[in-house]
């Protein structure tokens, strides 16, 4: 095959070839790193939450005025809501999981002084929380209504005697795989709560937190005048229920204000919006850059074809077939692309390395590099195909016609 003439032709136009190779190299490096970082963000956003996020509605109620009675309001609201058609389950909750706001505390598995403390998000909830969130209990039981302590209970700020925790925090407190049910979990003041149930998996408040899965649910009402309800709707009925719930609650009691009636899906989406914005930005960068590079190759190749019209004609006149001409351009382009890819591989790793050392970026998964290589080979091939086809159309007689 005619590698040698192609190589020597490229060497005659060294700078041009180097520039194409450099362009390919930079494109590979950027595309691979962007794809990798975007994929990580997307995986982060799509982690399974363990909860029925799509069917849950959150409602806040704030009492005002002297007539407001916190505990009565909660009891009335819970009854009203659970009687509404289309609602599967309802519970109070001091916060919405994955919303970005919440409380955390350190807990220990024993009362010994050196027992390590582990941080968990904690929520004050009512008896139906397990059903409302749609989480799966691995062992133990759900709360009963007698577990739930009233807001006017004098002992409110101390831990309630029962707690349901996630497997993630159970593993930390009592050791990997320990059944945990029946054991006591202690706060910093040495007060214990009995673990009555363990949830397979759910998330806490902060999507960016490494211990996101460490959650504890306490059966108790929050101090007034603020309370929040989580409401699980029958599948597909969430959006029709939102305005109904808002109106029903607002009309039922005028000593409080109903606000923030929102789907949990929207709240979760909001928590991830920074991650999402970065994933989208990086993906757009990938598409744009592939476009710019592809068109750049098309432009350069078309230009070269026009410049070489005379030589192509001459080659055709002395016996080269159309496909020889096409092959010439394809191979030339393939050579430049390949040099670029080799350069780009080094550059990709270097960029990943410097990003990883300057910021908190993971080490590159090399599958992305392989995928990027194939993408650029394909891109180079597609970009040069049309100019090469046009080159093959050059008539042999052109050699005799022009000076």
């Amino acid at each position, binding site marked *: 095959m005619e590698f040698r003439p192609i190589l020597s032709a490229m060497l005659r136009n060294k700078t041009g070839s180097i*520039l194409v190779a450099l*362009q390919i190299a930079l494109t590979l490096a950027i595309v691979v790193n962007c794809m990798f970082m975007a994929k990580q963000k997307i995986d982060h956003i799509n982690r399974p939450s363990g909860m029925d996020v799509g069917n849950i509605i959150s409602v806040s109620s704030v009492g*005002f005025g*002297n007539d407001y009675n916190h505990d009565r309001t909660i009891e009335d609201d819970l009854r009203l809501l659970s009687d509404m058609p289309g609602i599967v389950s309802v519970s109070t909750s001091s916060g919405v999981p994955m919303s970005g706001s919440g409380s955390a505390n350190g807990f220990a598995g024993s009362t010994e002084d050196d027992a390590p403390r582990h941080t968990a998000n904690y929520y004050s909830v009512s008896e139906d929380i397990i059903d409302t969130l749609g989480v799966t209990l691995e062992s133990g039981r759900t709360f009963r209504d007698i577990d739930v302590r009233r807001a006017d209970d004098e002992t409110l700020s101390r831990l309630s005697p029962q707690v349901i925790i996630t497997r993630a925090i159970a593993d930390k407190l009592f050791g990997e795989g320990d059944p945990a049910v029946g054991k006591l979990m202690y706060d910093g003041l040495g007060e214990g709560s009995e673990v009555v149930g363990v949830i397979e998996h759910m998330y806490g408040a902060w999507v960016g937190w490494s211990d996101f899965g460490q959650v504890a649910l306490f059966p108790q009402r929050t101090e007034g005048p603020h309370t929040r309800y989580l409401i699980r709707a029958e599948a597909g009925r969430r959006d029709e229920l939102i305005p109904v719930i808002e109106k029903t609650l607002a009309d039922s009691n005028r000593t409080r204000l109903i606000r923030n009636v929102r789907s949990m899906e929207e709240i979760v989406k909001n928590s991830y919006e920074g991650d999402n914005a970065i994933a989208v930005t990086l993906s*757009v*960068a990938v598409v*744009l850059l592939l476009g*710019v590079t592809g068109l750049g190759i098309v432009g350069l190749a078309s230009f070269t074809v026009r410049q070489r019209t005379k030589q192509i004609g001459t080659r055709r006149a002395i016996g080269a077939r159309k496909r020889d001409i096409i092959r010439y351009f394809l191979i030339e382009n393939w050579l430049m692309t390949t040099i670029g890819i080799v350069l780009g591989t080094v550059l990709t790793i270097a960029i990943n390395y410097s990003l990883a050392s*300057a910021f908190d*970026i993971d080490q590159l998964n090399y599958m992305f590099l392989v995928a990027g290589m194939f993408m650029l080979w394909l891109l180079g091939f597609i970009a040069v195909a049309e100019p090469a086809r046009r080159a093959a159309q050059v008539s042999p007689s052109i050699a005799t016609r022009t000076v």
Partner: protein
Amino acid sequence: MFLYNLRLARMSLMKQPLLTTLMVSAIGIGVGACMTILTFVYVISSDPIPDKSDELFAVRLDSWSADNPYEDDKPEEAPWQLTHPDAMALLESPVPTRHAAMRKAAFTVVPESEDIAPFVNIARMTGRDFFDMFQVKFLYGSGWGKSADENAENVVVLGKETNDKLFGGRDSVGETVRFGTETFTVVGVIDTWEPNVLFYDMNNGPTNSVEDVFMPFSITDRREIAGAGNTNCWKDEQIDTYFDLLQSECVYIQFWAELNSPAQKAEYQTWLDQYTEGQKALGRFERPMNNRLSTVTEWMDVQDVASDELLVVLSVGFLFLAACLVNTIGLILARFIAKGPIIGLRRALGASKGAIFRQHLVEVGLVGVAGGVLGLILSRLGVLGVQRLVSDADNLRGVDIDLLLITFGIAIGSAILAGLYPTWRVCQLPPAGYLKTQ
């Protein structure tokens, strides 16, 4: 001469419309992408109060646990906020020109008119110095007096939005508003204030909006109002009542001081150090002495307002621009080399290397200007696109003149940079060779 060069450049560019379009779009897209990201970084890191950001200090004392620093990633820093006892003690200091303790609290506003539904408003509980210290502009009235701070009087300064809602935008000074169960007298209404960064309280994110209600800080204690911001605690303390929280080591109060000279700053630092020394004697402040005074911009750095992730994306943006430039260099080089015969002819007719150089520089400059315009348009579109993705990015509305200049600077600078090598190459072409072949 310049006009002549411009005409030649235009003619030459028009002759190859496809290649010209490619060059302009490569620069445009590169600049557009880069500037979109730079806009975010620029806006979020620009000084929100440039007139006096050097004289305003976020005050912090390291009251945290002896066992570990407040922030593991930044062990040299003191906690972001103060405890209640410390904030109250600092308010007694005679050193600062102005100072204020502050926190957020939520109130239900109960309008007198039945037509307006009650609504919840986030209030900033602070001292009277807040308004002068941060140069807050008033539409009507002014801040409250000293006695209001001392006696926890029910006075309120409204933001424009709340005043519009409750009073239809009229001068409401002297009128009353019911917050929860109590009635407050309006003493002032402030104009719209939208700093790019909520520098005085970044605990719930740097791009939150300024609160729309302001009340004396002392009210929180008299009425036992729970805060709406972040509360962080390290000590295992039994906190049952509001009074327990007041006495605790929990931090939840922001504190700012205005110090107009380095001498005053030094004096205040000494005052703070003496205060913590005294507290150490009482068994508090178990960590090494670490009292921090940070200017507005220093404080923004500590709070990582321009986050690592934003900087990663910014570096990707610059790499993207570099890739687009290499692309452009290739295209320009190909074009210029192809012009060899004409250049040869012009050189033979007496054009100096300098003249050829200038002419081609004008040509790439023209590409740069066109790319800059395109880049500017694309970056505006990009910013709009990102704003759709991020809900609290409204503060990026305005086009800053500096940003405009930076965009054009980058566009033309990159075009010239991209054109420099091809232009130089073109001048090295020996004229004789080209004359012979034709």
